[in-house]
């Protein structure tokens, strides 16, 4: 039966890769942003301590995994649920976990590929130098940090309709990236936004990655990890409510 899980993941990967709207935007947006804000302004010092090419590697890395997972879950599930495909799957003997695990593994893998490309750009053109262990620690933290965004995507996917889901994901994703300090270093954000940033998971993941990088951060590392755990539980709970509402409709 483990064969089922592998095949489900393989097909999920092929499906996502061939869906240009997903694969291209997931890969190109973070790379493009990093080229503009990280590399072209590479000589500027963020916070007077660290070159932008280095600082933004952490924040755009976090931005990449957030995008890859939010769109895969938020849009993917809304579309497949809303148009009847989930019903066919649910009537079949597919292990229910296979579907969600495949989505999780594949979207995190997409995020990891983009992070690797970003690291490559940073090392080749941004002059970013770190010990191997530090590269790996930052990559690992970013990949693990994808989990709350899988849960948030699932919550959106369980509530949104197939047509409104892409707009809904964008309305959450873009403000969250900006306000969480993923595009512009936290210190340069307006006061008001700095105040609400701790309410966003994007802020906490960026802070964890920045800390590994050795950049100045806000608050203790443990707080950020706890916050992400809390967000994961919260979003999973909301996702469960959406699922229960759907069951209610079918079983009511």
């Amino acid at each position, binding site marked *: 039966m483990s*064969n*089922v899980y592998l*095949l*489900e993941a393989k*097909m999920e990967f*092929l*499906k996502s890769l*061939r*869906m240009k709207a997903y694969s291209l935007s997931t890969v190109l947006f973070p790379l493009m942003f990093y080229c503009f804000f990280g590399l072209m302004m590479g000589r500027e010092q963020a916070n007077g301590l660290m070159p932008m090419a280095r600082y933004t590697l952490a924040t755009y890395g976090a931005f990449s995994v957030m995008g890859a997972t939010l769109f895969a879950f938020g849009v993917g599930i809304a*579309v*497949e649920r809303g*148009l*009847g*495909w989930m*019903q*066919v799957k*649910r*009537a*079949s*003997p*597919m*292990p229910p976990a296979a579907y969600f695990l495949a989505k999780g593994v594949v979207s995190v893998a997409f995020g990891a590929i983009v992070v690797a490309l970003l690291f490559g750009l940073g090392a080749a053109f941004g002059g970013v130098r770190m010990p191997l262990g530090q590269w790996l620690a930052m990559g690992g933290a970013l990949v693990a940090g994808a989990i709350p965004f899988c849960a948030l995507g699932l919550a959106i996917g369980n509530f949104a309709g197939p047509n409104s889901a892409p707009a809904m994901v964008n309305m959450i994703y873009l403000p969250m990236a900006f306000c969480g300090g993923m595009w512009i270093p936290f210190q340069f954000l307006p006061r008001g936004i700095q105040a609400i940033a701790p309410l966003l998971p994007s802020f906490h993941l960026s802070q964890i990655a920045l800390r590994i990088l050795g950049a100045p951060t806000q608050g203790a590392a443990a707080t950020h990890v706890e916050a992400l755990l809390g967000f994961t539980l919260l979003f999973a709970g909301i996702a469960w409510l959406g699922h229960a509402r759907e069951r209610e409709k*079918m*079983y*009511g």
Partner: protein
Amino acid sequence: MAVAQLHAVAKNYGAIAALRGIDLTIEPGEVVSLLGPNGAGKTTAVRILLGLVQPSSGRAEVFGHPPASQYARLRRGAQLQVARVPETLRVREHIQLFSSYYEKPLPLEETLEAAGLGDIRNRLFGELSGGQKQRVLFALAICGNPGLLCLDEPTVGLDVETRRGLWARIRGYAKRGGSVLLTTHYLDEADALSHRIAVLHRGLIVAEGTPAQIKRQGASEGLEDAFLAITGNPNDVEEVA
């Protein structure tokens, strides 16, 4: 043992009664049609047998097990009315993935052959015509070599030629000993394919028998006339519900 059974099954959606207590049995090797106008409760009956909907009262069984059980899932195939399936997978890939869910699936070649998909196995689902898409959904229903096939209006929206082709495939499946539950509002389809027809009207089975018996019950030659005689004027169906 019966392949599938509904005992006094009723289903309410809020104040609307979709099914008002129906009994239905499908025996091994039998093709049974649920015939009725739109809104008669056909899809609800199928969804109950697929374990996607829980009846408000009454009992449903597939091979003596609850319809949502893994035991039932492994022995059942389904073709639902689906708006869209993932379009960026190839025909062959869709079938391979679905086959992997079952314990003893048909070999890929056999499924492709039985659904008439040999020539388009490498095409992406999104590139297919309406009739070809229906054939892929049919392939997903039969690839697990199930004992029971549930087809919810499998030929709706297809041209005559494509419909006839699908009929031949359904007959081919039944000839190998599989049971079929088919819903349709095409009278000729029920007549051509089934051993037994149950006429569903406003949530009740108002007539049941072989196609010949149904015709007799309506005291008429054609099944269409019989259907109208049994269910009354179809024009007032919408208003009365």
